[in-house]
Structures are given as C-alpha cells and as structure tokens.
C-alpha cells in the first residue's frame, strides 16, 4: 500500500466511499451478480441461497432511543446462524440495525461506520445526525440493483441529536428513501408483529426501563409469530441484542438485564396460565 495523495482538484474530501472507489478497493459484490433473478420470497424471506437477518426495532423514550434486534439468520427455511448481531453502534451517538440479506447488510454497516469515523477525522468535526441518516440513505440507494435481485437491505437508523437534545429514528426503503419516525418503527419479516406490540404499549416520554421492556416484548411477540425471527434461546443462553443511545452515547444493555427481562416475561405468562 502507498500513501494516498490527490491534487486539490481531484480530492475526495471526507468521503470514504469515494476514496475507496478511487483507490479501486472493492466495496461489495458487483451490482450484477450474474445469476438469473433470484426470486424474492421463494423460500420464506428471500431466496434459499443467501443468509437473511430479520426483525429489528427502534423506539424513542424520554432520554433518547432504544434499539433491539433478534439473533437469527436464515437460509430459506433453515436456520443459518443463531447468534448473529444486527444492532451496531454507527458512531458514539448513533446506532444502526439491519434486516435483509445478511452479507451485504453487514458490509454496508462496516462501510457506514468507517465512513462516519473517516469524516470525523478528516474534517475534525462530527456529522449532524441528519447528515448521517442521508449518508446511509445513499448507501442503500447504491445497493438498489442488488435489492432488485432479491438481496435487499433495509436498515433502521437512530441516534441522539446533540444539537436538538433528543433521540431521532429514521427508517429506509430499498430505494434509499428515508423517513423520520416520531415514535417507533420496526423492520424485517417480523417487523409487523413487533410494530403492533410497540404501538399498543407506547407512551410519549417513557422511562428507559419501560422502553427496554417494550422492545423486549416486541421481539418476543415477533418471534412468536414469525418463523424467521429468533426468540430468547434459553438452551444456549443467546438473547436478542438491545442498546440505548442517549446524551451519554451508545450503550449496550447487558446480557444479564435482557435475560432477566425475558425470564420475567415468561414467568409472568406462566403464572397467568397462558401458553408462553
């Protein structure tokens, strides 16, 4: 490797994606993967050959946002991975969660994380939350050709807006369109069930603990209804990932806390005499 130098007229500035394009470092799989159109939904969510990740949720509470995601990855009807991570810190004050084709999604997150840090280091200032949301939108848009072939990536982006002192959530569609949500949203195959659960329990200005509890409940319900969404795996001790972003930055909710919340949830249902 050599030191990358550019003339002032040719400088990619703080744009990391532009830089690696200029240096011809391959970013992701080529836009056209060659095979005939992989049928969307042929084997459950997506074709049978590619790994898929499902169900991530985000909701606002009084001090910021909570984001959570299940851990299952599927290949058609088979379970491909039981401990996949779908919730990532994007930088100190934002988080990104992914649903869709696992390979390109994880790669997109990696590029996005590097992009934000690269901007911060080159420019000496941090991008605004809206700027970060737009950046992610561009990456999703560039991914559209692959999405048309059945390898769609639909992220959720949320963070703490330091300029406005509030948590904000953005959702995306495969065309890169992004929309700000006032309360909550969920995406992925179990997103509908998760969304309904949150909708029923949501209140403006919730406390942190209530918001985490509601996210846990939403994932529980989604796993209950959707085969591609993993619930708490009590046998192996694998639990959904939950994180908060507040004025203090990105913080993962400890596995003990998540495990305890699921245990309480299950116990409550047992006492009530309902099937868990």
């Amino acid at each position, binding site marked *: *490797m*050599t*030191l*990358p*130098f550019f003339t002032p007229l040719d400088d990619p500035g703080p744009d*990391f994606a532009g*830089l*690696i394009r200029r*240096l011809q*470092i391959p970013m992701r799989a080529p836009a056209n993967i060659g095979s005939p159109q992989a049928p969307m939904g042929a084997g459950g969510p997506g074709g049978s050959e590619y790994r898929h990740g499902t169900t991530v949720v985000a909701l606002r509470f009084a001090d910021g946002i909570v984001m959570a995601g299940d851990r299952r990855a599927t290949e058609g009807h088979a379970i491909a991975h039981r401990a996949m991570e779908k919730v990532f810190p994007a930088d*100190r004050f934002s988080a990104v969660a992914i649903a869709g084709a696992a390979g390109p999604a994880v790669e997109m997150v*990696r*590029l996005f994380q*590097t992009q934000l*840090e*690269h901007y911060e*280091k*080159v420019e*000496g200032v941090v991008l605004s939350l809206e700027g970060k949301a737009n950046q992610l939108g561009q990456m999703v848009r560039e991914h559209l050709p692959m999405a048309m072939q059945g390898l769609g990536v639909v992220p959720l982006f949320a963070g703490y807006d330091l300029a406005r002192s509030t948590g904000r959530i953005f959702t995306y569609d495969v065309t890169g369109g992004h929309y700000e949500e006032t309360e909550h949203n969920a995406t992925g195959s179990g997103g509908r069930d998760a969304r309904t659960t949150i909708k029923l329990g949501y209140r403006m200005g919730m406390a942190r603990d209530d918001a985490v509890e509601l996210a846990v409940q939403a994932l529980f319900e989604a796993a209950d209804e959707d085969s591609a969404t993993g619930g708490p795996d009590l046998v192996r001790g694998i639990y959904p990932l939950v994180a908060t972003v507040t004025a203090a930055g990105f913080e993962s909710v400890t596995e003990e806390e998540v495990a305890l919340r699921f245990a309480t949830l299950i116990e409550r249902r047992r006492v009530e005499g309902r099937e868990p």
Partner: protein
Amino acid sequence: MTMPYYVAPEQVMKDRAEYAQKGIARGRSLIASTYAEGIVIVAENPSRSLHKVSEIYDRIAFAGVGKYNEFDQLRVSGVRHADTKGYAYSREDVDARSLANLYAQYLGQVFTHEMKPLEVEILVAELGTELHPNQLYHIAYEGTITDEDRYAVLGGETEAIAQEVESGWEENWSLSAALQATVGALAGAERTLVGKDLEVAVLTEGSGRRSFHRLMDTELDTLLT
C-alpha cells in the same frame, strides 16, 4: 549559448536542508512523552481549530510542526491510508510502523526529487499494548526516521527543550507531572504557558476502541496546576 553551470550535489542538498530547517524553525515546538497510562502530546498552539495534533486511528496519533498546509496534507493521507487498510483487512492490521515508513519514504522522495522540500517534521505515536511498548516515530523533513520509547521533541530549536525534558523525565510519571514538565520545557525560562496557549492530546486506554482524546479547558487547567 549559455552553459548550465555545475552545482555540486552536496551543495544542492545543503541548500535544501537549510531551506527546510528555516521553515520549520519559524514555528513553535512540540513534545510527545510517554506517561503511566499512555502517551501525551503537547504543542504550543493558540488556535482551537487548526490542529497540530490529531487522531489517525484507534491507537495512533499524528503531530506535525512547520508549514500547516503541508503537514495537514500528510495527516489526511495518513487517515486515508489507515482507514482503507483497516477496511480492506482488519482494524488490528493497522500499525504505526508501516505508516511511519510510508511517511519517511514520501518525505525522502520529495526531498531528493522535488524543487522544494516539505517544511515539516512529523510524529506518529502509537499506544502500546501488553505485548508492545508505546512507540514514537519522529520523521524529519528529509525522511530520516527515528523511533523513541520515552519522548520526542519536534521543531526548529529543540536542543534546549530536549535537554530540559531529559533532565526531568521519569518512567511512569503521572499525566499531571508529565504535562507540567513538558509545558515548562516548551515555555523555557522566560515565559509561562497557560491552557489557552496549548494544544494537548493523549492516547490512553478509555472506554471504547478509540484511544485519542483531547484535553481542553478545565480538564487541562486542573492538570496544569
């Protein structure tokens, strides 16, 4: 017809070196030193936005003295190198030694082949781990690279400053002790430097993977008193 007159290569190099040294000597000096929990870099710099000390990667910092636009260009290309390397391979594959070598190659190349040498002296600092000690790579305008594991002084008139640091330097001293000694050495006998004249950053194990941290305002003032 005019004959191109002969200039001895020794003379050419000497002239270039003098030119670069003069440029560097116009600016203020900078000191980097290891301390108990990491590395501290202290520069005399009243500006809050035009930095002399900056972050390159998780455990790597950059510092430069001399002409701002020249060392800033080197800084940005270092960030680009580190980020692309970390993206193409893995974050742990990014190391200061290879970056320092690339800088040395580049500075050497410019010094011998270009009309004008770069009027800069730069430092690449890397926070150590349990297996590797802290590393300070000091690279001069002509590409000479030296590695230090205690302290490094960059700038034009560094001899007096280096002597001052050498006499007071201690293994594993506290951040506050290291700061007071280095700031004292930068100020010399006749002046005193306060927080707003200084740009200070540390590389130290913190909460996350990024170890670069700027010390400013009250935090810095408390350490200095």
